[in-house]
């Protein structure tokens, strides 16, 4: 049969009435059809006649069948057929909804939200006490389940957001196991395998029935980027191998103007049975160093975004030796040790100072360089001041140079005594000195001092008031081994020993490399490769949210290195980039050894898809069918009795046509797009454009909104716009529009690179885009807390948008036509943002506003849902209510005034601002 096993009935006993259908057949045949009433003047002639036939005329069989079907459909309809019934029987009254709410859920979070809403609505209808848990938040221990009515949870669904980590199933299993009452569980799983998942499942099953919802698409994640053969290499994983799938990843970093954009893109393909694929970005080292993150296109999850930290960044280190290629063996030269230590993680330049500085190195290392010329000193000082790191090693030359005998020099952290000292040599007393443990607060704190490091010679610092604070490492006798001082934005560090093994065994030990690492001379952003995490406070610089958006961390305090290494994500330790000193460590959602796998649910647990509507109640369909059949029956009966006259049929056809025509009319409005032959029309007229988001409702509202605004403009001003036009930003020519309205919709696709370029050109050439997140009722706007806000951030991040500020009181927008102080739409209160005024804007005397000069803001950003306030139907009625009563009317009026002002501003620029010159002009005219 046609999948009849997928249908069940809510009240199956009602189906027994189907037995009555044959009875109905007999009955309908027995009862003659209603007599046809006809006027007939010759009736008198008939009066004497006898009706010989006793069997009445029969209802035709097909009409009978029609009626039987209609009745059958009604019976089946009321029996409540359900397509795809959920096999979970309600066994408990209480309902617990578990949401994995992990980064892997973020990709189809919208679907999860709507599924959750559906479940909650259902629970609300059945008055089941419900509690919703986001399992990425730890359970509130020792508390009984706090069941509430589902209606209370419903409004929270909209703002619920996943966390960028995986839930701790053990914790939750323990928590739920402690509960005494039984409950049913609905589990919105992210579909990723976890060892502990089964434990939680067992607990849930012991409490009641469990049904599970999973997404249909594999989860995609990226491994930490590595540098292989000077290429940036990232491996993309997916949680299960399905069909062939293309994957495109972008390497993102600041472009020369500092704006983050995709610097390189790579497309690869998962073959049929592969669950991972290599993504290789070929790019020059300079470009690679700028990469801050790699993201998979079209994926909205933290797993599909990796930050690089220092992983792929290699510092440029310039080694400057005083001696060029000495006779002595290379193996004992100072440069050799440094080269060995640095080459794996840094690009080493060996050249003379002048050339090296031209290459703009990150670090400059002087090995035993004595005196510098004045020119050289100035050049290096300037470089350090600009943020460079100068590391100097002592040596015989420095000791002999007496450079810093009398007073502190710029390029040395401390004053040095002449000559230095040696200990433990053949000609001196004492044994070679060991190192003191590193003191807390110094860059080396936490490094382990090996026993075998000994110092036999060093340069000695002059006692100074500020000596103590400049010492970062010392020998056991308290004499400094490493000193540093800040110089401008940069640092100067001095090792009081040589970089080779002549003066100490330090360069021979592993400590040497670690110390260089700590000084950020060489870097490695991989957590696994940073051996000295412990004891350092790492400050989050950037964090990744579950949707894969990277934002600057401002409100999170630093964490200890050990916590960082534990990768125990929480609100206090979100994934992202953490920094310590000059180093940046990348903490990505997926560890290097973690692999994605699909959850294998044990048999007997119903696993349902998020997308497929779980239950389809077929009752309305059947009743509709019955109604359709009955309508047919009406026509058939009419036709049979000869009452289906031409006029009647004509009316029906007319109504049908009208319905068709009106519906096709709206379709026409939707496809009212810019084509080439229209462009000339658009150029010759003023026309307002709106960006088509793909969301039919939003687009219809935009169209109606701009129609309303156009009408108001026509009425109130000399601007006479024609019908507004929907713009597909991917395809259409934007330059013909002075103004675009862009409502933000979550379902919108991000514009492609070409589109972004086009929009930027539009903004540069004087166009204005009004972004409207339409959600001022959800938040006070632009905080990024709402889905639309996030979407706007995502779109706007790629556009060249200048710094913004809320519209100041004296902005032209407040007086380009009407005098306004607020800009309400359907909502009010949210700030409206425009390009920030120049810092040096002066207020002139006698003029109530500043001289803001020229320049129209390219964007206006708000959340007040203006289109809805402007929107009118074709008949000129307002489509959406605004506020209530008189206040609402006033609010709509102000919304319209804002629209008028905005268009005036778009069309006339800062013309009104020129009024500042009126006093001067009048003066010149001698008035």
């Amino acid at each position: 049969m046609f999948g009849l096993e997928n249908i069940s009935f809510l009240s199956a006993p009602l189906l027994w009435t189907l037995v009555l259908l044959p009875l109905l057949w007999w009955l309908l045949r027995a009862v003659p059809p209603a007599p046809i009433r006809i006027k007939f003047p010759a009736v008198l002639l008939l009066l004497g006649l006898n009706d010989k036939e006793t069997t009445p005329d029969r209802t035709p069989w097909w009409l009978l069948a029609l009626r039987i079907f209609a009745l059958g459909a009604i019976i089946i309809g009321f029996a409540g057929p359900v397509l795809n019934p959920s096999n979970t029987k309600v066994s408990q009254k209480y309902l617990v909804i578990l949401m994995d709410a992990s980064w892997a859920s973020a990709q189809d979070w919208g679907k999860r939200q709507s599924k959750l809403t559906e479940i909650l609505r259902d629970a609300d209808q059945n008055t089941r006490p419900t509690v919703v848990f986001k399992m990425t938040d730890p359970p509130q221990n020792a508390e009984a389940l706090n069941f509430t009515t589902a209606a209370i949870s419903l409004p929270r669904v909209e703002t619920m957001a996943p966390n960028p980590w995986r839930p701790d199933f053990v914790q939750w299993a323990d928590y739920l196991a402690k509960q005494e009452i039984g409950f049913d569980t609905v589990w919105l799983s992210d579909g990723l395998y976890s060892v502990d998942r089964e434990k939680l499942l067992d607990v849930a099953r012991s409490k009641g029935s469990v049904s599970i919802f999973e997404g249909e698409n594999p989860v995609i994640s990226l491994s930490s980027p590595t540098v292989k053969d000077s290429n940036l290499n990232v491996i993309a994983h997916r949680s299960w191998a399905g069909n062939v799938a293309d994957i495109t990843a972008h390497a993102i970093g600041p472009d020369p103007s500092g704006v983050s954009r995709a610097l390189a893109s790579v497309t690869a393909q998962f073959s049929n049975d592969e669950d991972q694929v290599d993504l290789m970005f070929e790019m020059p080292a300079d470009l690679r160093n700028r990469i801050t993150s790699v993201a998979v296109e079209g994926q909205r999850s933290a797993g599909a975004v990796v930050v690089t930290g220092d992983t792929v960044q290699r510092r440029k280190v310039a080694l400057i030796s005083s001696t060029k290629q000495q006779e002595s063996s290379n193996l004992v030269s100072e440069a050799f040790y440094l080269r060995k230590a640095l080459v794996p993680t840094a690009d080493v330049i060996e050249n003379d100072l002048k050339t090296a500085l031209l290459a703009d190195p990150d670090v400059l290392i002087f090995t035993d360089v004595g005196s510098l010329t004045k020119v050289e000193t100035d050049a290096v000082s300037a470089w350090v001041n600009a943020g460079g790191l100068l590391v100097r090693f002592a040596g015989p030359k420095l000791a002999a140079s007496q450079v810093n005998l009398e007073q502190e020099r710029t390029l040395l952290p401390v004053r040095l005594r002449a000559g230095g000292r040696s200990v433990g040599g053949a000609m001196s007393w004492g044994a070679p000195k060991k190192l003191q443990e590193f003191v807390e607060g110094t860059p080396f704190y936490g490094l382990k001092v090996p026993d075998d490091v000994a110092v036999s010679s060093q340069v000695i610092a002059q006692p100074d008031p500020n000596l103590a604070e400049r010492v970062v490492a010392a020998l056991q006798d308290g004499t400094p081994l490493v000193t540093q001082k800040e110089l401008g934005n940069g640092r100067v560090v001095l090792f009081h020993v040589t970089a080779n093994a002549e003066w100490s065994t330090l360069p021979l030990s592993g400590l040497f490399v670690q110390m260089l690492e700590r000084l950020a001379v060489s870097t490695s952003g991989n957590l696994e490769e940073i051996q000295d995490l412990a004891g350092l406070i790492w400050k989050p610089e950037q964090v990744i949210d579950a949707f894969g958006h990277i934002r600057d961390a401002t409100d999170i305090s630093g964490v200890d290195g050990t916590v960082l290494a534990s990768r125990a994500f929480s609100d206090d330790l979100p994934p992202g980039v953490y920094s310590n000193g000059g180093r940046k460590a990348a903490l990505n959602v997926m560890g290097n050894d973690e692999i994605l796998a699909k959850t294998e649910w044990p048999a007997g647990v119903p696993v349902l898809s998020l997308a497929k509507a779980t239950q389809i109640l077929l009752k309305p369909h059947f009743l509709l069918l019955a109604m359709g059949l009955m309508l047919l029956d009406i026509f058939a009966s009419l036709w049979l009795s000869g009452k289906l006259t031409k006029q009647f049929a004509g009316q029906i056809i007319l109504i049908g046509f009208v319905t068709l025509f009106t519906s096709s009319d709206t379709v026409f409005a939707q496809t009212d797009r810019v084509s080439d032959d229209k462009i000339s029309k658009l150029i010759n007229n003023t026309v307002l454009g709106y960006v088509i988001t793909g969301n039919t409702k939003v687009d219809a509202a935009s169209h109606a909104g701009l129609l309303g605004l156009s009408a108001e403009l026509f009425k109130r001003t000399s601007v006479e716009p024609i019908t507004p036009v929907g713009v597909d930003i991917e395809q259409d020519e934007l330059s013909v529009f002075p103004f675009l309205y862009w409502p933000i919709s979550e379902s919108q696709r991000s514009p492609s690179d070409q589109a972004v370029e086009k929009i930027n050109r539009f903004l540069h050439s004087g166009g204005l885009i009004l972004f409207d997140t339409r959600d001022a009722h959800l938040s006070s706007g632009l905080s990024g807390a709402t889905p639309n806000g996030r979407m706007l951030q995502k779109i706007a991040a790629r556009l060249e948008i200048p710094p913004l500020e809320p519209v100041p009181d004296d902005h032209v927008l407040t007086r380009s036509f009407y005098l306004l102080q607020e800009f309400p739409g359907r909502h009010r209160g949210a700030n409206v943002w425009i390009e920030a005024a120049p810092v040096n804007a002066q207020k002139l005397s006698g003029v109530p506003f500043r001289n803001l000069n020229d320049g129209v803001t390219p964007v206006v950003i708000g959340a007040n849902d203006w289109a809805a306030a402007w929107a009118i139907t074709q008949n000129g009625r307002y489509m959406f209510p605004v506020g209530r009563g008189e206040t609402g009317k006033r609010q709509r009026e102000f919304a319209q005034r804002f629209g008028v002002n905005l268009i005036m501003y778009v069309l006339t620029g800062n013309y009104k601002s020129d009024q500042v010159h009126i006093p001067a002009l009048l003066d010149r005219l001698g008035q």
Partner: protein
Amino acid sequence: MSQMTGIRDTAENITQGMAALMADAHLLAASISHGAHGRRRQGEGEEFWQYRAAISTDAIRDIDWRRSARSDDHFIRQHEWQNTQSVHLWADRGASMLFRSQDDLPTKANRASVLALAISILLAKAGEKVGPMDMADPPKSGFVQIDKVALHLAQTNPDQEFSTPARKHMRQGQKAVFISDFLGDWDQIFEGLSYAANQNVSGYLVQVLDPVEEIFPFKGRTKLFSVNEGHNFETLRAQSLRDEYREKLLGRKEALQQLATKTGWQYYCHRTDETALTPLLWLYQVLGGKT
């Protein structure tokens, strides 16, 4: 005021109906006048007969001076002796006549009135006297009378289900035209016609029927009403009655024919889906033939 407008409305309705009727009838009549029966219209129906020599008893004013001048004798111009016909018309306009089976057919009453008026016009042109049978006035000649006839025919009496031939005193030798469907009670019809026949007038029966009344196309369970719903008949299988009904109708036609034969009258049956010219032609011929 309202009464006045009411009257005016009614008047307009009536005259409008009349105008339409007149238009139809004139059109119909004109198509005959141009046919083989074209008559001269010179004089008031007076036709030149002969000149005879005047005798002394003749009045001087009777002498035709123009003819006399061409000879020595005096001549008198004698006219054809003409005996004007008086034709009484009865067009049934009862409720049963207000029926039509399809919108593009005229009602029987309409057809009857048009026929009556058209023949009136033709007769008036020929100088005969015409008058409705259900109007007390005697028949008159002239076109003013036509207007009166038209005005009278434009009025229907839908309250009466089946109307019977009007009883009017007619003189011997006058002519009576009865246009009806003759579907009412036979006894009443017979009585009405007999009344006229007893006055020794020559009668002409035109039966006007709707095609439905001849064909009886009904099927299935049917409830048949007379136009005013005064009578009804219900059948379960209408198609089985068809033959019997046709027989009955044929019986009625034969009864009419018999009546005509007995009294020396003439009978004609006309269906509204045929052209009105045929019955008019027939009427014109039979009326003219007796002249």
